[in-house]
């Protein structure tokens, strides 16, 4: 599903962010990506999502070399991947329902399907009662649940989550983690970046550790 071969990335050609990183993630697998702050977790996720380019190596997603996808065709990759951000990236002007349905509008889904799928996605994260609320009216945990609903609503094959529980307290973090577990059970591949060691220990998933841009464990 995801394969990285000797991926190297430097910022400005000087500061190394990733050095010779090689690993793979199988279809339907849940993987924790961990390491101290500044280790290169976010850079790695951004490379997989092609919001960052890399200097050397190869990255395959579904066997497709993503380094060779032209910018104008990037949407094909991003429709297969759901990304959950630490800062949620919700649109403050849109309601909860509109934020989730927006993800389907941009890929050209029809109105009937949009309504049905949005409702279903909100039901899965337990937020149907907040459908008309606006993001600033929600707690951090609720906002992240909306972001997860938005990431899942187009039935992606992969979810990349960048510290999705970084701003949440432990109890809410577990609730959020369970939403990802639920997605995995449906066959979605999950790469979950976190530096919360308690959370990692609470589950029996493979852990990829990065330190100073280098892979320490896989």
């Amino acid at each position: 599903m995801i394969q990285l071969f000797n991926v190297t990335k430097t910022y400005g050609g000087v500061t190394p962010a990733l050095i010779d990183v090689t690993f793979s993630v199988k279809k339907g697998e849940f993987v924790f990506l961990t390491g101290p702050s500044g280790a290169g977790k976010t850079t790695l996720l951004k490379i997989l999502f092609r919001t960052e380019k890399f200097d050397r190596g190869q990255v395959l997603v579904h066997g497709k070399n993503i380094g060779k996808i032209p910018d104008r065709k990037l949407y094909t990759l991003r429709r297969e991947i759901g990304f959950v951000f630490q800062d949620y990236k919700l649109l403050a002007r849109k309601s909860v329902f509109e934020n989730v349905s927006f993800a389907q509008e941009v890929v050209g889904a029809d109105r009937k399907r949009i309504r049905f799928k949005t409702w279903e996605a909100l039901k899965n994260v337990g937020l149907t009662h907040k459908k008309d609320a606006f993001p600033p009216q929600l707690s951090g945990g609720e906002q992240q649940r909306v972001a997860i609903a938005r990431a899942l609503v187009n039935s992606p094959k992969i979810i990349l989550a960048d510290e999705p529980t970084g701003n949440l307290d432990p109890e809410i973090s577990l609730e959020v983690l369970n939403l990802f577990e639920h997605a995995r059970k449906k066959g979605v591949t999950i790469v979950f970046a976190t530096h919360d060691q308690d959370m990692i220990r609470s589950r029996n998933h493979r852990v990829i550790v990065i330190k100073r841009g280098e892979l320490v464990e896989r």
Partner: protein
Amino acid sequence: MLNSVSTTISNIKSNRQVFLVSITTITIAFSILGLFLVIFVNLNSFLTTWNQQVQLIVYLEDTVTANQRQVLEQVISQNLDIESMTFIPKEAAWAKFKNTFSSKKSSFVDDLKFNPLPSSYSLKFKPSEDRILKVRKFADVIKKKDGVESVEFGEKWLVAFEKFMVFIRIFILAIGALLALGLIFIISNTIKLSFYSRQDEIELMLLIGATPKFIVIPFLIEGMLQGLLGSILGLSVVKCLHIYISVQFKGSFDSIARGLDFQFITIPLIFSLLMAGIFIGWLGSLISIRQFLSLGHTR
């Protein structure tokens, strides 16, 4: 498409003031251009009418013989470009002159004891594109014939007027080009503001798999809409002005240019201006979208 239109409406709503300022600027620019075009259209029509009315007058010497006149008439009748020939004897010319210029206030014309006017031939040429050239060529031939005193067809006026029209044409093209450049710049900036006000949304759209076309189309529609609305309003302003001038100064026009209507811009020209408005709007948007994309906001 429906989505693009609703996004366009939403873009306009969130930047209503900038949108209105942009439309007002386009309206003013198109009003200026429209006014120049109205002046041009009317001058052009004046020139065309004048051209069609040009007659070659061949003035004869007082001592012209019947034999010389016969030769002249033969030369005239052999020219296939001449539609009609009218001989005006000096008595008839004098009678017509007296009829036109004698008045109760001045007895100068009536007191004149002799006829100063010569006999003449009035030659009307067949309508054609190079009519004036043909008149000029024939005038050169006939003025060298015996019995001819001089020829007259208002050449100096026509040449000067034609030169003036060439200048006006270049002037309007230059003004049009300058206004178009200014408008492209204004529209491009309006769209840029629209882009920046929705930057978070656009970035998110790209992250969740929107095609570049899906993002760009509403902004292109917005630019084209600005161009279209601005040009329609601009031309409407000119039309209102045209109606006002036509009604207010009707009598004056009749005395300046008898038989000529004060014309508005032709339908094909109106259509071309509206198309130009849409094109300018599209180009302005495209420039700002390209800038936005090249800055990497949307990667």
